[in-house]
């Protein structure tokens, strides 16, 4: 007995001492989280996870090779503990969540009848599954089986539905899905993602220049989840109140429902959910990634700059915006009149962006005068984004257009209105141009007291690039369209004041590059209209004169016809740390395009700062939303079936001819009622690439 005890004690002492010494002598550093995770596991070293022991399993979990639910014996309880350990380490600000990206399910047609094992991976082995759609959900729920948190189930429509309360973002479902439908992503991963041809995208979502997930937010509205709808929009567009009011919605031109009756009134729905959040949901939190320590300067506080600031901040960078005018917003503050986009509404959007924290603003300073690239770099900024817009006007090539009193460029006219010091107009005003800026000038002139307002345009009304609703509103407000005319000469009195405009009538000749027939003036057709003021609204250019100065850092920028030349994917310029987006980086375009470009620029800057590959993958989807070209093949249909005809809701507006409409700057277009919004949301067929909900009711 004594010998046995002595032997055991001796053994224990020897083994303990040896191991103790060995662990000090042969110490190797390893991630302290591995030990913490190992404590959460069952500790049985059973190997059921497929790894050799709990330590190896813990190491694999920390390295991201195994998911948090790997321990079979520990089950959901162990998985929750592991998730807590890793979650705390990863930073709770960037929650990982799983998302189902396919909305096909039962509605998606099948190529053949599959009778095999009820498992997606097994079904996938046979011609990549029975579904007609190459990237569609097979619906056997391998992801559901993989989820140890009970956060996934196959919903009533035949595709998986994530319970966001229970999902811990472990990634098991993503690994289980053979089609890559389940995606576990951080918010910053989603911000950095650009539409790819391999994504599951409805035609509207392919067309939107900002790539907003339209079917998803409309579905949230349908279910009454207006806050979630808004958060979905904010992932792509930080100015939803503003775009909801002024966007010409190219998405609606691609709406598949238009083949049966009318397109869904997408933009009104966006406006509805954003207004709802503005009025109700002020406490909604937008996730921001942990600080990266980088600082980015944004020159110009217009829509593209604001959008880039918002996304750069959400990616964890510190941002400072420099703006030369007293207020942020650029062209949408100083260009778009109050009756279309009230300033206080625009500022709700801007305040929400600035409310993220970590975005500084400096107004009243001009690039090239008060500061330049050297001072920004010296000031500790790691990258610079130029979003200086297009604030100069293009010439109409009418003699003396700079000298005659009463002739004013649209940019100046609208900016003075935005500054609260409107340009005084007489009783008769003419505006040349057919775009939205011209419409803004026309309708503003009415409100500034002009009795007779003319719109001069060289082609016909149907050729005007302005939004149809704007042209209609001009008709409602008594504006006269003088089409097919080319102004040639200003008529002035003795003191040089404008009294009239002489123009030649046009006839239409051969189609030009844009596909529209080009106007040709008719000889001896001179006509005179008596006017007091003439507004030039035929386009804008960027003032990039600072790039022409020799010997400065900024002179290395290349410019083309005033615009700053950049790589249209990464938005990087000839100077590696300088990026540019928005109107100053190309022909001036839509607000929603500037917003989308802002996010792309934020992506480019983020990739540059983090030293990652900046180029887009070759599968990048490139859609031309103006010419409606470049969609994923097979997603644009000629006809659809199974749809009950239901017209879209009307745009509510101020009574035409009313005092408010003609003489005040009260907002003309109104937000739809909740009842109408739900009605319209139910018209959405929730399309994906090829399948859609038939017979919506």
């Amino acid at each position, binding site marked *: 007995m004594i010998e*046995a005890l002595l032997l055991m004690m001796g053994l224990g002492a020897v083994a303990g001492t*040896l191991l103790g010494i060995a662990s000090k*002598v042969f110490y190797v550093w390893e991630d302290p989280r591995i030990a913490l995770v190992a404590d959460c596991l069952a500790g049985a070293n*059973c190997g*059921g996870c*497929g790894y*050799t022991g709990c330590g190896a399993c813990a190491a694999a979990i920390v390295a991201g090779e195994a998911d948090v639910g790997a321990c079979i014996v520990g089950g959901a309880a162990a998985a929750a503990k592991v998730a807590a350990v890793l979650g705390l380490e990863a930073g709770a600000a960037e929650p990982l969540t799983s998302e189902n990206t396919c909305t096909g399910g039962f509605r998606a047609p099948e190529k053949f009848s599959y009778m095999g*094992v009820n498992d997606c991976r097994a079904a996938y082995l046979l011609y990549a599954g029975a579904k007609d759609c190459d990237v569609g959900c097979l619906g056997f729920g391998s992801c559901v089986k993989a989820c140890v948190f009970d956060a996934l189930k196959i919903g009533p429509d035949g595709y998986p539905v994530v319970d966001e309360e229970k999902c811990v973002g472990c990634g098991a479902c993503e690994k289980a899905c053979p089609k890559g439908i389940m995606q576990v992503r951080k918010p910053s991963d989603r911000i950095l993602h650009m539409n790819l041809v391999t994504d599951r995208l409805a035609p509207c979502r392919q067309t939107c220049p900002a790539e907003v997930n339209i079917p998803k937010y409309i579905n949230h509205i349908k279910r009454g989840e207006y806050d979630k709808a808004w958060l979905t929009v904010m992932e792509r567009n930080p100015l939803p109140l503003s775009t909801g009011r002024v966007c010409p919605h190219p998405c609606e031109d691609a709406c598949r429902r238009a083949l049966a009756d009318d397109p869904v009134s997408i933009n009104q729905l966006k406006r509805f959910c954003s207004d709802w959040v503005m009025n109700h949901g002020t406490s909604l939190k937008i996730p921001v990634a942990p600080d990266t320590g980088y600082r980015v300067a944004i020159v110009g506080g217009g829509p593209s700059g604001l959008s880039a600031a918002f996304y750069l901040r959400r990616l964890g960078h510190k941002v400072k915006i420099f703006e030369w005018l007293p207020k942020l917003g650029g062209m949408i503050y100083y260009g778009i009149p109050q009756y279309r986009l009230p300033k206080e509404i625009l500022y709700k959007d801007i305040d929400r962006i600035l409310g993220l924290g970590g975005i500084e603003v400096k107004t009243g300073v001009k690039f090239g005068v008060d500061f330049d690239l050297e001072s920004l770099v010296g000031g500790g900024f790691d990258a610079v984004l130029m979003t200086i817009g297009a604030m100069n006007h293009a010439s109409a090539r009418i003699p003396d257009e700079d000298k005659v009193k009463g002739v004013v460029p649209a940019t100046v006219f609208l900016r003075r209105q935005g500054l609260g010091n409107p340009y005084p107009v007489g009783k008769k005003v003419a505006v040349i141009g057919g775009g939205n800026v011209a419409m803004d000038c026309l309708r503003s002139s009415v409100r500034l007291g002009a009795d007779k307002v003319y719109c001069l345009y060289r082609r016909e009304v149907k050729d005007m690039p302005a939004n149809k609703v704007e042209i209609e509103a001009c008709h409602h407000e008594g504006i006269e369209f003088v089409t097919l005319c080319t102004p040639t000469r200003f008529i002035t009195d003795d003191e040089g004041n404008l009294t009239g405009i002489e123009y030649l009538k046009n006839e239409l000749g051969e189609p030009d590059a844009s596909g529209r027939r080009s106007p040709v003036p008719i000889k001896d057709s001179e006509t005179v209209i008596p006017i007091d003021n003439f507004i030039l609204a035929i386009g804008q250019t960027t003032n990039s004169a600072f790039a022409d100065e020799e010997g400065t850092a900024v002179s290395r920028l290349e410019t083309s016809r005033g615009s700053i030349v950049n790589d249209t994917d990464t938005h990087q310029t000839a100077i590696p740390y300088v990026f540019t987006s928005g109107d100053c980086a190309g022909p001036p375009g839509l607000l929603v395009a500037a917003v989308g470009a802002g996010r792309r620029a934020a992506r480019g800057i983020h990739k540059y700062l983090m030293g990652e590959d900046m180029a887009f993958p070759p599968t990048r989807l490139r859609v031309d939303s103006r010419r409606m070209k470049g969609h994923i093949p097979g997603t644009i249909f000629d006809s659809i079936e199974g749809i009950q005809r239901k017209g879209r809701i009307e745009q509510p507006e101020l009574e035409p001819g009313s005092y408010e409409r003609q003489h005040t700057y009260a907002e003309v277009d109104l937000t739809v009622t909740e009842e109408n919004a739900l009605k319209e949301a139910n018209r959405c067929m929730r399309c994906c690439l090829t399948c859609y909900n038939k017979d919506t009711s």
Partner: protein
Amino acid sequence: MGDYILLAVGAILVNNILLIQYLGNCPFLGTSKSMDNATGMAMAVVFVLALAGIVTWIMEAVFLKPLGLEYIRTIVFIVVIAALVQFVEIFMKKSMPALYAGLGIFLPLITTNCAVMGVCLINIKEEYNFLEMLVSSLAYPAGFGLALILFAGLRERIIIGRVPGPLQDVSIALVTAGFMSLSFLGFKGMI
């Protein structure tokens, strides 16, 4: 020489530690999902058993038998094998990182694996001399590796096969293991 070959064949095939003696079933099911893991595991078992066989045989010969302490053999073996394997693991992690990466991560799993323990006890029970013990300690894990690798090959195919829902994963693996065991029973009577 002939005796040793007979001993080896008997240990590998006829008395296969996994399929006939049913020892070490946890790693048999746990690490047989992929061929890579199975190979690593087999190597680790050979390595550990060779060491453990030697050490436990010496323990038995030097301490337990002379002192008449055979009744605490099991406990002593557990402590000795565990301490030995832990020490080897710590040593390898620092000094032979390459070998550790290939093999070392399988070591903790078999610290007190029943197959390891079982072979050590068989060595004593059969009263092998040192050489016989060495052959046995190499042949039994070789049989372990053979069964494990064969089984991993089968499982890699089963995963992609048409398995009825209730039988998927471990259930079908156990059924397969049963069939393998039956076929190994066919070696009975060879010696």
